[in-house]
């Protein structure tokens, strides 16, 4: 059932076998997995069903360098459904190499292997509505696909791995009926956790302090607690709860908030092909949009000592009217109607003069039929479609593309979140993000670009030209890739190296667990949502037995228990 925390009786503590903090991708996926478990679940959500400015304002914080990191209340949504109300839907598993300790990536290596997580990915795909768990073209398609780049073959770069896309599914809206109908689960809206209160000996969570913006305060007492509030907020909650452990909960080794990673991303160079190229989407039998990309193979990564990097063929830079493409110019001119999170990488926040603006307008007018066809496609396949065409694909008449790169970041203890003195409306200290990248981050991408230029030329399929000296500039032009908040409560076998153990329990606190991308020790090349969901499902599986209620209460729904 779904309730509003403001409607609860004043002061009465809420009890549960398991309390999940945050109804976003990880929290909702976990709740779904536990609906038939017999556990009494309590799901706490700060926001309501829609966007609410005062809830969202609790996310505001500081950034060390605004050029490198977007404001903390962007790219994340403090509301029921979390940031799945905003996401683009790219649903990628991590690669096996991402879990390995690699001597060329400092602090790399997970305490679990890909095989430990693999069983949970297919269900994560189902919940995210990203279709079959099949990420190679040959697996996902029974029909032969045209080659991504005809005639291209490389020992180091593959073009047969796929990206798959969710609808993009808003987990809150999609699964609301299940949470409403569930007898063993209560979802409380407008319930903000303000403190993780430990037992006096610091060996377990005693309760959570919860507050609403309307002034209601109460405690939650649960056998087990899962933080699933997002990659930034999980760390904030731990750091801000300082009364028993002075440095913050689980922060005895000063690791909470450190190793903060996003992804390196940017668009670079000019790829001109002499052979046919297919850089758009293919629709799988199950209806999901899939797209191939160029990926640096694991063997090449090891040999060349590079992190995990992938690239997609991309349209030319929108802002420069020299592309003479009506659709791109229209997007430039319409940028104020595009949400900040998506517009940021469109216009680069560069102001154009009147003449280039006029040239954009001319592009639109000169390419009227193309622009009109594109608008129709946008209306039919994106605006009105439940499964949305994921991104803008422009077929280049000149067979000319730029390269859109997405790369792994090396874990770096100096890239970190800290608490500010300033507090939010509930008295919680605000966050400050000091995001950093390393030489290795840029070097990995530079290596990939070199290999691509070499192999495109060697195969005689075209030419890739770029300025090697501009790699760092282009990969940091828009700063950290928005919305991917990784590593701030990293997983490690030892409490000296990580905040949570291999099972996502906070070291030394067996009843406190963390779900979401904050537990990833490394960032891989993949967008984090699918792996956050898969790890959440793995944790839910463990909690089924761990948090099993006493025999008396097995299977009793809340309604029965409260009858006295």
């Amino acid at each position, binding site marked *: 059932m779904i309730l509003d925390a403001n409607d609860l009786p004043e002061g009465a503590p809420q009890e549960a076998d398991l309390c999940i903090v945050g109804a976003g991708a990880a929290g909702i996926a976990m709740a779904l997995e536990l609906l038939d478990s017999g556990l009494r679940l309590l799901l706490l959500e700060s926001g309501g069903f829609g966007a609410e400015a005062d809830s969202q304002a609790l996310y505001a914080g500081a950034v060390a360098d605004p050029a490198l990191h977007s404001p903390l209340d962007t790219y994340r949504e403090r509301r029921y459904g979390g940031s799945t109300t905003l996401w683009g839907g790219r649903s990628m598993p991590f690669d096996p190499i991402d879990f390995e300790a690699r001597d060329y990536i400092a602090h790399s290596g997970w305490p679990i292997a890909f095989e430990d997580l693999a069983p949970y990915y297919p269900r994560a795909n189902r919940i995210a509505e990203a279709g079959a768990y099949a990420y190679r073209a040959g697996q996902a398609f029974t029909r032969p696909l045209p080659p991504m780049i005809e005639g291209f073959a490389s020992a180091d770069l593959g073009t047969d791995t796929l990206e798959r896309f969710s609808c993009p599914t808003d987990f809150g809206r*999609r699964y609301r009926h299940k949470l409403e109908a569930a007898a063993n689960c209560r979802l409380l809206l407008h319930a903000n956790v303000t403190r993780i209160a430990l037992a006096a000996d610091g060996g377990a969570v005693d309760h959570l302090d919860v507050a609403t913006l309307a002034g209601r305060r109460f405690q939650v007492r649960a056998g087990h607690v899962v933080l699933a509030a997002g990659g930034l907020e999980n760390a904030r909650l731990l750091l801000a709860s300082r009364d028993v452990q002075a440095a913050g909960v689980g922060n005895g080794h000063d690791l909470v908030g450190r190793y903060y990673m996003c992804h390196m991303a940017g668009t670079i160079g000019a790829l001109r092909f002499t052979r046919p190229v297919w850089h758009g989407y293919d629709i799988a039998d*199950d209806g999901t949009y899939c797209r191939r990309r160029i990926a640096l193979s694991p063997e090449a990564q090891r040999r060349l000592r590079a992190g995990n990097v992938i690239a997609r063929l991309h349209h030319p830079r929108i802002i420069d009217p020299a592309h003479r493409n009506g659709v791109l110019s229209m997007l430039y001119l319409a940028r104020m109607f595009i949400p900040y999170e998506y517009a940021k990488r469109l216009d680069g926040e560069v102001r154009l003069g009147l003449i280039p603006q006029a040239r954009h307008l001319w592009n639109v007018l000169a390419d009227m039929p193309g622009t009109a066809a594109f608008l129709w496609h946008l209306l039919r396949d994106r605006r009105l479609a439940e*499964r949305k065409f994921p991104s803008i694909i422009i077929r280049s008449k000149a067979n000319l593309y730029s390269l859109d790169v997405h790369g792994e970041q090396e874990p770096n203890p100096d890239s970190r979140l800290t608490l500010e003195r300033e507090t939010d409306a509930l008295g919680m200290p605000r966050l400050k993000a000091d995001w950093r990248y390393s030489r290795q981050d840029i070097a990995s991408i530079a290596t990939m670009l070199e290999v691509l230029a070499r192999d495109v030329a060697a195969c005689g399929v075209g030419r890739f030209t770029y300025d090697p000296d501009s790699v760092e500039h282009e990969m940091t032009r828009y700063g950290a890739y928005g919305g991917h908040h990784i590593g701030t409560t990293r997983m490690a076998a030892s409490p000296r190296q990580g905040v949570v153990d291999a099972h996502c329990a906070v070291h030394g606190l067996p009843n406190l667990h963390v779900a979401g991308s904050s537990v990833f020790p490394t960032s891989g090349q993949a967008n984090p949502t699918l792996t956050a969901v898969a790890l959440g499902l793995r944790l839910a599986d463990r909690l089924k037995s761990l948090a099993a209620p006493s025999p008396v209460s097995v299977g009793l729904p809340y309604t029965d228990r409260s009858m006295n």
Partner: protein
Amino acid sequence: MIQSVLVLGASGFIGRRVVQALAAADGCIPLAAGRRLATRTEDGIEALHLDGGDEPALAAALTRVQAVVDCTAAPPETMRRISAALFRAANAAGRPLVVQLSSMAVYGNAVGRVAETAALSDEQGPYAAAKLAGERLAADYGRAVILRPGCVYGPGGLQWSLRLARLLRARRLGDLGAEGDGIANLVHVDDVARAVVAAVRQGRAEGQAFNLAMAGAPTWNEYLMAFAQALAAVPVRRLSARRLRLETKLLAPPLKILEMAAARAGAVAWAPPLVPPSLARLFRQEIRLDSGKSERLLGQTWMPLDEGLAETAAWCRAQRA
């Protein structure tokens, strides 16, 4: 002991398979009865022309058998009439065992795991009410076995096979999102036929009711997705709740009229299929039939879904020609 078994509605989707299963079973001899039959079925099995409502003819047929299975598919009022006639005739003709094919519809709008002991309801309308009335007559009669199948699919099936196939091919059904999270309590027609044989042969089944739905039944989304792929009706389209409402509210009423007109003209196959509101409701209903009892007492096993779907899709494709 050899048992003769009268099968009513023997030329229908389920009845035909029941006759075949009885003929193949040791110790059973089927006697096929139906309005469209004469002296033999297509498979050469003894048959008789019989209208279920013709009580004297029914009573005469019942004197020749030890058991009777009612597989009649008819509008609710006809079903009621035939049930009433059947139990009166059975009482007058030596009280043979009656196997009554009921439906999961008698559980109404229940959700969750539902066993045979669950409360019964006629809230889903005249069809459910007629099935429930039949069950009450069976209970009064005493010597009866009640089978409550979920959605019976398989070659020859119109409701859960051909209709859905046509809608999937037209992309009017597909991935329904939250609208398709209900459980498709599927049971293959051959599994139903084997349950009937077991019900006739196992003395301990008498006086009992049995749910019939495959173990681990998929959600409707999963079923529609798998069926579409078996039909090669791909890529499967994601349909919004809005689109489904358009089907049930706007399209269904005129299509229903068209269907009734086509039925009157004897050309049912020509009418385009429709998605009535009751079907959309079922797609959402998270009811899971617990068929453990039929597994334990009748030794019931289930046809794997991929096998059943491959065979069903092949039949559906042949209907197009």
